[in-house]
């Protein structure tokens, strides 16, 4: 029973990592940048939903929608102001700018909303009992697993099948050549950020529903974990992000349960390194050797 419990815990935790990782990987896959501010957009999304539901007593659905709208706009604004001018700059310059944006969001959030931790009211409450008193799954966990899968399938179809999705992939490879095809590169990348940030809002709401504490730094740790998950699954690969996220959650849980809680972080990251040594491009990442 405790094994099953651990599996459930691992998957619930993993689904949260996964949904964040999906946004991460999306932005990475197209804009080819590590958006370290992604975690902080998540935090903003959660705050928006928190205030919508708490201060204005709006129903959860409206709260989520509001969070999605605000984050989408925020993502596009950030992209326009901070990343777009750096299109031609080395990728590390963009990385550092993203870190700057991350600090900016965190500190603005603290000034606006205070440093004190707030308790988030889950958008769905309660849990599904499998074995009374012994085994249950929270509805939030179920919801986030479902969201993950839906988002994953949606994104895969979108980037693989639709014209817009293909245009995004073209931009990610060669912006100049994409322009020559008649693709509006700026609009496309803006769109990428819009999608990524909308996902971040969703992730924020789900994360805070599952683990209902909220503070200006709430997004930073999950951001790093999700980045790890995305790489683990093969960065840029949409199904990889899902798999990486879930596995990371399971490994973390099993590591704590069966190895040691003292060194839980060390265990997770050691497993990660070992997996990467066996599969240098992550689990689902295609290792495309450079044609010589």
């Amino acid at each position, binding site marked *: 029973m*405790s094994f099953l419990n*651990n599996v459930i815990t691992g998957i619930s935790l993993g689904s949260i990592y996964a949904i964040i990782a999906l946004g991460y990987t999306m932005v990475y896959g197209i804009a080819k940048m590590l958006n370290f501010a992604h975690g902080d957009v998540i935090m903003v999304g959660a705050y928006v939903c928190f205030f919508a539901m708490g201060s204005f007593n709006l129903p959860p659905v409206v709260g989520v929608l509001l969070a999605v709208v605000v984050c989408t706009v925020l993502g596009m604004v950030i992209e326009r102001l901070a990343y777009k001018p750096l299109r031609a700059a080395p990728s590390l310059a963009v990385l550092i700018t993203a870190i700057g944006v991350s600090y900016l969001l965190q500190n603005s959030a603290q000034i606006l909303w205070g440093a004190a931790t707030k308790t*988030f009211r889950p958008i769905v409450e309660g849990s599904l009992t499998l074995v009374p008193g012994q085994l249950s799954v929270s509805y939030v966990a179920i919801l986030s697993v479902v969201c993950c899968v839906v988002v994953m399938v949606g994104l895969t179809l979108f980037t693989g099948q639709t014209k817009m999705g293909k245009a995004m992939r073209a931009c990610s490879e060669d912006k100049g050549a994409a322009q020559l095809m008649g693709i509006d590169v700026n609009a496309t990348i803006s769109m990428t950020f819009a999608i990524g940030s909308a996902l971040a809002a969703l992730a924020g709401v789900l994360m805070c529903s599952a*683990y209902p504490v909220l*503070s200006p730094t709430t997004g930073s740790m999950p951001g790093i974990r999700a980045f790890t998950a995305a790489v683990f699954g093969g960065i840029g690969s949409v199904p990889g992000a899902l798999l990486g996220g879930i596995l990371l959650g399971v490994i973390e849980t099993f590591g704590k349960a069966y190895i040691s809680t003292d060194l839980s972080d060390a265990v997770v990251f050691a497993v990660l390194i070992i997996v990467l040594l066996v599969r240098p491009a992550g689990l689902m990442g295609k290792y495309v050797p450079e044609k010589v």
Partner: protein
Amino acid sequence: SNGNNPGGNSGGAVTIKVGGIGPITGDLAQYGTATEWGAEIAVEEINAKNGPVKLDYRFEDDTGVADTAVSAYNSLKDWAKDAPLVIYGCTTTAPCVAVASETFADRYFQLTPSASSPDVTANKDNAFQMCFTDPGQGVAAAEYLKNAGLGTKIGVIYNNGDAYSTGIANAFIAKAKEVGLEVVATQTYPDDKTTDYTVQLNACKDAGADLVFLPIYYTPASLILAQAKQMSYAPIFFGGDGMDGMLDMEGFDKSLAEGLLLMTPFNASGTDERTKSFVEKYQEAHGILPNQFAADGYDCMYAIYEACCKIDGIADMDSQKLCDALIAMFTGGDFSVDGLTGTSMKWLESGEISKAPVVVKVEGGVYVTQ
């Protein structure tokens, strides 16, 4: 303020500079801001009194990091120039230890509201604490449980990346063994950003723990309570002073904390005049309820103020002389302070505070003293 006149004598009153240090940005900002704001209220009250001593208060951010704290301390020194300066802080342990060794060498009096490790005061005659020490709390907790006859099988979950949490847990476990309490599970997690505690709770549950001791801060504790409920695990939860503040978290479902026991020196729903007025002012200024950090901060200012009022010839003292005088006052034996977190609080030679630990139980969303 006038820099080159020791004991800055303005309008008959002596002005003492109080430089506070704590994290007001970053992960630990909520604790730092509480100590900053609690003290601020006391300073306002004190300065409004028109007593013999006035406090000139400034608070610097250390982001919870030792080296930044030392820089913050030095910038406070620059701020004070030659005026007498007392250091208030730091909020958290690691920075406080680093700063205390600086103040010890430079001879500044230092009083921390919340840095509770014995390392803060060890071998430093100038460093004093307003809070209980961690081992002290651990020992008190074990003794309390023994005496109250609570918990036959005890689980402990603590943050082994945090000095405060580890300090209490280690002392608690040792003392528990000594007094014959059975600790059946010891579980850890690496930092307060951890979100999932199900594994730790499961381990306690599987070991049959009917009481879980949580020497941790209220943010992770609130998650633990929620997750325990989720998995229908309902032991008695028992926490340390870091747990205070949980009930005041915006949006917190107080029913989760029903039956929770914690040791706290401060009760925001206390009915005495002083507490009520403090809570009112705090809420007015910052929109949230004060917690134990804020109350300790408030008491620190009064301790400094009252001690200064009693020192003879304070007008001619520089920081170093003031430091020695304050040390003498604090350890003199007959100096005591009444505050929000205790009455007749006194200090030991070691710098540790001596005040009575209070255990409260959450009943109907408020603290009930046990």
